């Protein structure tokens, strides 16, 4: 790598880097700062000339318990979905990384990852078709049970959880698989030759060694789920009111942008706190 020795190198460096980072500045970092500023305003400057500063938007969050309750509901949803993704996804990553070899593994891995890169809205919509009352799922399950099924899963919290697990499961599988695959086979062989059982190998070797990958996956699931609003709207119906849907409402229905900005910023603070707590683990996962 070249050290910056002369002025022309430095000019080239700035010329190469500044377009991308100026773009990120204008489109991401300035907006996030502007949101913090707006969250302390009474009105939008473009709407009324006599706007002022206030702590009222944050006070509303504290004085009206609904917001706190909904934030907690979203955090709980995040924890539920994350736990489900770990319990379903980690064994899957284990199978992919440790028992399947060669081309079959590559193909299966690609198959698991592919839906994750496809349109998330459309995938949630497909669950709406599957779960709707008297729909495909009930017909399918009736093949196995002798009586008429009335599951009525659509517009329930379960439906929201199913849809979100479907959306984010590949994250956990991806990060766990990468961590598990990097474990040296010789270590496992050594443990086995010294008489360690499968359970001991899993508990004492595989799980601790792949923990950074698993945790990275968990964070990558938890953060977007806490901020989700489209999935609860489509699959949750009446019970689908979460912190994210309240923020959405402030911007597209109620038009109280300063309050929306304050609520968004509180969510951002929660997310940043979680990322900060997880960053030592995430850094380990990176190396």
């Amino acid at each position, binding site marked *: 790598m070249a050290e910056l020795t002369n002025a022309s190198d430095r000019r080239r460096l700035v010329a190469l880097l500044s377009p991308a980072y100026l773009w990120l500045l204008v489109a991401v970092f300035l907006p996030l700062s502007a949101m913090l500023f707006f969250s302390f305003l009474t009105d939008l400057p473009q709407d009324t000339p006599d706007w002022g500063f206030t702590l009222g938007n944050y006070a509303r969050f504290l004085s009206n318990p609904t917001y706190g309750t909904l934030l907690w509901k979203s955090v709980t949803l995040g924890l539920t979905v994350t736990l489900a993704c770990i319990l379903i996804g980690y064994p899957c990553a284990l199978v992919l990384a440790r028992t399947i070899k060669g081309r079959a593994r590559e193909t299966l891995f690609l198959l698991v990852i592919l839906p994750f890169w496809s349109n998330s809205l459309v995938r949630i919509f497909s669950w709406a078709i599957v779960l709707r009352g008297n729909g495909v799922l009930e017909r399918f399950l009736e093949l196995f049970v002798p009586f008429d099924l009335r599951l009525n899963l659509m517009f329930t919290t379960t439906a929201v959880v199913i849809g979100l697990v479907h959306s984010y499961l590949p994250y956990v599988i991806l990060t766990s698989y990468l961590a598990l695959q990097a474990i040296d086979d010789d270590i496992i062989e050594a443990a086995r030759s010294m008489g360690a059982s499968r359970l001991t190998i899993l508990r004492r070797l595989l799980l601790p060694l792949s923990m950074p990958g698993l945790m990275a996956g968990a964070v990558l699931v938890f953060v977007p789920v806490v*901020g989700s609003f489209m999935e609860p709207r489509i699959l949750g119906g009446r019970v689908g009111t979460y912190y994210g849907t309240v923020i959405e409402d402030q911007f597209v229905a109620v038009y109280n942008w300063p309050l929306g900005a304050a609520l968004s910023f509180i969510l951002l603070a929660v997310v940043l706190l979680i990322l900060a707590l997880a960053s030592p683990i995430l850094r380990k996962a990176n190396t």
Partner: protein
Amino acid sequence: MKTSLLAHAGRVWLALILFFLYAPILVMAAMSLNASPFYQLPFKFTTEWYEEMAGNEQIIAAAIRSVLIACVTTVIATALGTCASVALFRYDFKGKRLLQVLLFPPIAIPWLITGTAMLIFFFFIGIGRGTPAVIVGHVALALPYVIVTVTARLSSFDIALEEAARSLGADSWTVLRRVTLPWISPGIVAGGLFAFAVSFDQFVVSYFLSEPGDSTLPVMIYTAIRKGFTPEINAISTIIITLSMGIMFLATRKAKFGGEH
């Protein structure tokens, strides 16, 4: 290798997960070809919904807009991202680590927060809502993916090749054009495909930034679903998911095997 009971159970688990991941998508595709508008069984084949979709001007206009936005996003994000990757790879400087860390907020912060923040700021500086605002947002979301993909490809690049070219008298522009760029081109193509997919599939940011009645395909589908959905939406959704999976299939192939061919 002996296959134990446990290994068999593992394979069954994997198969169940693949079923869970693909079954709803296949059901949706099947229902787009089913005659009943209320998704009633038994299945009766029809292409009626695809014909209706093709005649629906709103859907076609949104589809064209989505593809155009994705193309513009791809060109801008790939160009800016490749330049930044080359700079991050070639030079050592103070603050490089910080610049790399700054790539994560657009990926890691929930899009709801980024999208609403963009909406507020773009109104504040006068861009407002609409297609230009959507493109500005999409490029920002796609940039980190391009930079990460191209940088990953660059990391397998032997810097000695550049030195060799330089010692043979090539100036640094020629080195970049004739040595570095050809090597990283599979990474650039993969990064471009990622950028296209990020833009084409993006819903949240487009939702907050697009003008009502002038929206992208995912935003239009969301509005339609909330009004009570029709099999036409099934048909266009099936086309979208086939397209986006196809693009991602190509991108992962390119990113991984590009160099060996």
